[in-house]
């Protein structure tokens, strides 16, 4: 078998050294009743060439963005991933290294994570970031756990305009955390601070999204203020790609900033693996879940990096840990660092501006009624298709275009609503094509 180096003579020599006469004898401690005594019912082994052919067949049956002009967003985005990201992730040292518990073996990974932590803090205006969470949904659950322990309160408030997947995951974790979840409905596509004010009494945290799931800009500073007035932690779930044009949550009163990192550096990949980010004010550093890299010196006085504040983590604190997380999303976070380094501050600002200009063009060109005409949007907006959304999608896809997400999948009263996303990968000509197939 091509992944094994063992030869027959190796096996013979090794069995002799061990003092057994067969491989079977090595398993003598396994009671007979639990021995598996038939071959595994799996398809026969494939050579590498056959393997590739099989996977090409499977991949060939998916409508990816190379085959279908796509305006799908709703939490996962088709932003341009530059070639250096591929090149960096292909380095076998990064790809195949373990978690850097032995820092002398892993200074490269540790320094890269330190740089990633710095970038996330810069984007969000926070003091400390961890080395990544699983994705943009689980970091919201993590945050509720932090808020519970920081405030002693057992209620969490979520804006209904927060990504439905994020809210579902929080609701799944909540019973085990002993938390009650309250949702605040949106008003014409944004969240009214007065509605939050009522809900935030005795809440541990208030989580809102900026831009929100509908692509609309929330009155974020006011939402943070009403949370803070109620003694709840203000938490913004943010799009990293927006943070060249939108203000950092740390500058308008948030305690914690979280989000899905995918749009910065990762391919869509049918939803994963990607990376979630969590960044906080320094007050909460000891409650941060997951790994944190810190700077120090070695015995020769040279600068170096180590995992730090490990007494928060499962391998030391066990049942009292801030989280059970061990494996995280380091490699994908490194991709994020590479992408954001490639963009630089200018590039990130231009990326945000480009998306917004394209959206303005699209709104005008499509000429369809906007679901929330009064709202400023970032890179997505909701329109009324004039027919049930799934019909509009079917008709458009027959012409090689995916027009966007059917909001009715998550929200009532939105039978004909499509969430249309325009990233820098969609040109004005692409938008013209969308207008054509939507019959606008």
């Amino acid at each position, binding site marked *: 078998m091509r992944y094994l180096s063992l030869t027959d003579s190796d096996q013979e020599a090794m069995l002799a050294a061990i003092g057994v006469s067969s491989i079977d004898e090595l398993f003598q401690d396994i009671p007979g009743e639990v021995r598996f005594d038939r071959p595994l019912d799996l398809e026969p082994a494939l050579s590498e060439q056959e393997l590739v052919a099989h996977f090409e067949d499977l991949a060939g049956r998916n409508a990816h963005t190379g085959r279908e002009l796509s305006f799908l967003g709703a939490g996962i985005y088709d932003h341009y991933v530059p070639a250096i990201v591929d090149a960096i992730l292909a380095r076998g040292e990064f*790809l195949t290294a373990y978690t850097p518990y032995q820092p002398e073996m892993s200074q490269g990974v540790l320094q890269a994570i330190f740089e990633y932590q710095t970038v996330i803090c810069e984007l969000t205006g926070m003091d400390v970031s961890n080395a990544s969470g699983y994705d943009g949904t689980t970091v919201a659950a993590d945050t509720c756990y932090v808020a519970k322990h920081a405030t002693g309160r057992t209620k969490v408030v979520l804006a209904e305009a927060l990504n439905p997947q994020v809210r579902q995951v929080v609701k799944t974790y909540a019973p085990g955390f002993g938390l009650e979840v309250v949702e605040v409905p949106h008003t014409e596509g944004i969240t009214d601070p007065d509605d939050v004010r009522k809900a935030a009494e005795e809440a541990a945290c208030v989580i809102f999204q900026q831009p929100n799931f509908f692509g609309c800009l929330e009155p974020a500073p006011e939402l943070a203020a009403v949370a803070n007035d109620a003694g709840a932690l203000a938490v913004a779930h943010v799009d990293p790609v927006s943070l060249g*044009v939108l203000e950092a949550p740390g500058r308008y009163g948030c305690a914690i900033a979280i989000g899905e990192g995918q749009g910065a550096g990762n391919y869509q990949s049918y939803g994963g693996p990607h990376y979630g980010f969590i960044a906080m004010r320094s007050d909460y550093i000891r409650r941060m879940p997951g790994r944190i890299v810190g700077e120090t010196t070695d015995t020769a006085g040279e600068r170096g990096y180590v995992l730090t504040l490990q*007494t928060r983590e499962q391998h030391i604190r066990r049942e009292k840990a801030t989280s059970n997380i061990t494996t995280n999303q380091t490699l994908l976070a490194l991709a994020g660092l590479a992408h954001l380094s490639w963009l630089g501050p200018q590039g990130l600002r231009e990326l945000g501006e480009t998306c917004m200009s394209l959206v303005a063009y699209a709104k005008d060109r499509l000429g369809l009624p906007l679901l929330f005409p009064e709202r400023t949007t970032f890179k997505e907006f909701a329109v009324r298709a004039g027919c049930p959304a799934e019909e509009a999608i079917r008709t458009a896809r027959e012409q090689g275009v995916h027009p966007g997400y059917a909001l009715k999948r998550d929200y009532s009263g939105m039978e004909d609503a499509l969430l249309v996303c325009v990233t820098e990968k969609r040109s004005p000509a692409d938008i013209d094509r969308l207008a054509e197939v939507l019959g606008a």
Partner: protein
Amino acid sequence: MKLIFEKSQAGRRAGTLPSYDLPPTDVPEELRRGEPPRLPELAEPEIVRHFTALADRTFGVDTGFYPLGSCTMKHNPRVNERVVALPGFRDLHPLQEEDGAQGAFELMWRLQEILAEVCGLHAVSLQPAAGSQGELTGLMLMRAYFADRGEAEQRKVVITADTAHGTNPASVTMAGFELKKVETDARGNLDLDDLRAKVNEETAGLMLTNPSTLGLFDEHIEEVAEIFHGAGALLYYDGANLNAVCGISRPGDMGFDIVHINLHKTFSQPHGGGGPGGGPVAVRDILEPFLPAPTVMRDGEDFRLDYDRPKSIGKVRGYTGPFGVFVRSYAFIRAYGPELRRMSEVAVLNANYMLSRLSGTYDLPFERLCMHEFVLSARNLKRDYGVNALDVAKRLMDYGFHPPTIYFPLIVPEALMIEPTETEPKETLDAFCNAMEKIAEEAASDPELLKEAPHRRPVRRLDEVKAAKRAIVKYGFDQHPDLRGERAEGETVEAQKGA
């Protein structure tokens, strides 16, 4: 080595965007970015050099032997990287309509079937993002099962082994259960008397890995299962050590009701410097209704997502899980076919060979054949020469190896937990054992050499006490402190661990 920010120069950039010649739009002033983020400013050549230098300072499985216990640092096949990059997988949006994702669904369904077969169980959720999340999911499934039977209030306690990985108790707390520990006996099995005393009608279940973190198969596993099932409780299998038993013994047949699998251990998803991973769960049919939604199901020639799951615990991660990880694991398994059993046989052979070579030189806590990993103790070196497991680990670096796990499992003093995996050739195993013997000799003749190791890495031993005290967790730009002139604080805060 400089940080990327220290190499930045204002005005440099690597990325440019297409310009569409559209009028600019405005963000309302109260929402607009004030100070720009201080992202690096470099052109492409220097970004590439920076990451190349970082890679040069990183040791991966591609570099050399990496025998961390219970981590299963096996070779990551390159063809897996080729197939995961196929546009049909890489550029597929997770909210694409079902008829546009049939290839993805078929892959997931087939992986589910394979994992059910390997585990000897009935239904699978691929959703959890990592082993820890699989553990938490499994505990949520337990709670849902008992709630469905009206026993939610009653079943409050989950029992873990004293050799358990830290994630087990951490998961128990996050799931809202109380923790109890059961002891290991002198032979390395769960102490049945201790177990019988602790299992009662308040017990929801057991969390156990088998073989244990000692690398030993529990010889009484059937009795263990009977004790829990007899009390109306469930058994949860931590799949961290599954590499030892694929095709040889199945967790479902051992009596386990819920299993999580670590795709980044047993099934070759690369570790990536800390992640990503995948932690799918396989369950007995009694637990199937509670699995996270959606599941992937087959409907004749088509595949679809089943959202109609009224008893589901909900959703533990976005979309259907870490799909790219599924692609690699499925590719790994399809390369083996039913010969997957051979993978485990060789993993166990390699470990026993190393054990036979080292048991004369180091302390052996348990007089048994091991499975895919084994634990030695360096306490003899500590007693005789004042050299401990940490010193051995650091000196191994000078010999070109990544050290094994140290100070875990907790019940073995000065523990060295070694898992070679099946992909290592005999010469590598011999070279490592030779180095371990040499280090034992050095402990006697020149202990300072070990205490000051490593000598040949980019850095010497690092001051972890200073790191925790100063908590410098990001670059401070103009305000960034220079720690180099400051006094040393000390090296280790807590016993290190590597698993």
